[in-house]
């Protein structure tokens, strides 16, 4: 179980770029290296992680932990994968709070904000790639866009509405 924990700490520490980068890293460690899961089981886990609420990486870690050591395993994997974040992101946040009045530091974030816009756009492409197989999904997209733009509806209600609409009419 310690090995499982250390593996997930490693995954958290070396995966840059969020969900999909982490999934690739998990595959390498859990399937190819340690043989805790078969490739088929891993593919199932990826599908389930994407179709369940919550961050994909946390979902995958919880699932793999549960498959190997039950509920304690899922807690250990989840804690392992967020432990490096807790340390590094805390340091980063403290640095930000300390230095954000300095002109050179503001200059960095001025540029990073523009970069963020590009990354959000890239995420839109990645999520959007599989999201529009037919006219129905384009319709859902248009309705959600209109509703949240026109009435500033809470995104939570938009998502619940879309899920119900999909189940009833999809």
């Amino acid at each position, binding site marked *: 179980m310690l090995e499982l924990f250390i593996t997930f700490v490693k995954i958290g520490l070396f995966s840059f770029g969020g969900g999909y980068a982490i999934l690739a890293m998990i595959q390498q460690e859990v399937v190819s290296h340690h043989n805790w899961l078969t490739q088929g089981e891993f593919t199932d886990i990826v599908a389930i992680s994407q179709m369940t609420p919550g961050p994909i990486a946390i979902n995958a870690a919880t699932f793999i932990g549960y498959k190997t050591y039950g509920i304690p395993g899922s807690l250990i994997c989840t804690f392992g994968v967020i432990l490096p974040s807790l340390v590094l992101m805390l340091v980063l946040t403290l640095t930000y709070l300390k230095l954000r009045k300095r002109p050179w530091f503001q200059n960095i974030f001025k540029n990073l904000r523009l970069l963020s816009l590009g990354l959000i756009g890239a995420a839109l492409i990645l999520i959007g790639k599989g999201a*529009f197989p037919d006219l129905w999904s384009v319709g859902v997209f248009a309705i959600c866009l209109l509703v*949240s733009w026109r009435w500033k509806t809470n995104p939570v209600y938009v998502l619940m509405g879309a899920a119900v609409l999909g189940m009833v009419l999809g």
Partner: protein
Amino acid sequence: MCSLISIFTTFLKIGAFTIGGAYAMIPLIRREVCQRRGWMDDLEFMDGIAAAQSCPGPIAINLSIYVGYHLRKGKGMAVAVLGTVIPSLISIIVIAALFTRYAEAEPVRRAFRALKPAVVALIALPMIEMGRKAGLKLSNCWFPAAVLLLVGLADVSPVYIILLTIAFSVWTSLRKRSL
């Protein structure tokens, strides 16, 4: 000011509706933390997105740590992370224990066929306003456009672009001697 309980319940809600990755959190956090409760302004939040992407680990968790710490230091950070993680833990354990064929169930597939375009719409909408606040102009829009193409289509890892941007920003500051 915000209580730990309200941070926790806010992030519980955010965690439960983060569907398909950390970017789906952006409209949720912006709505709950910036607009509805006014705990943080848009620029601080965008800096958080930038920082969360520059740090290893799940972006959703990094962003919760940033927002939680901003609101109530270490305790705020702890409850924000717990709130984000708990919906995942519960739903995945239930699925893993009872219903491994979950992703193939017809109602779930139907719901997700509608949820995916909904998430795209929700992420796309705030981009215009965020662009305005980030100081997006005709003269600098080539930069986010290039990032979008490199990461979204050419599959370049964001880490290199982030490191280059930081290095370039420090270099221009040094040149202007505005340290």
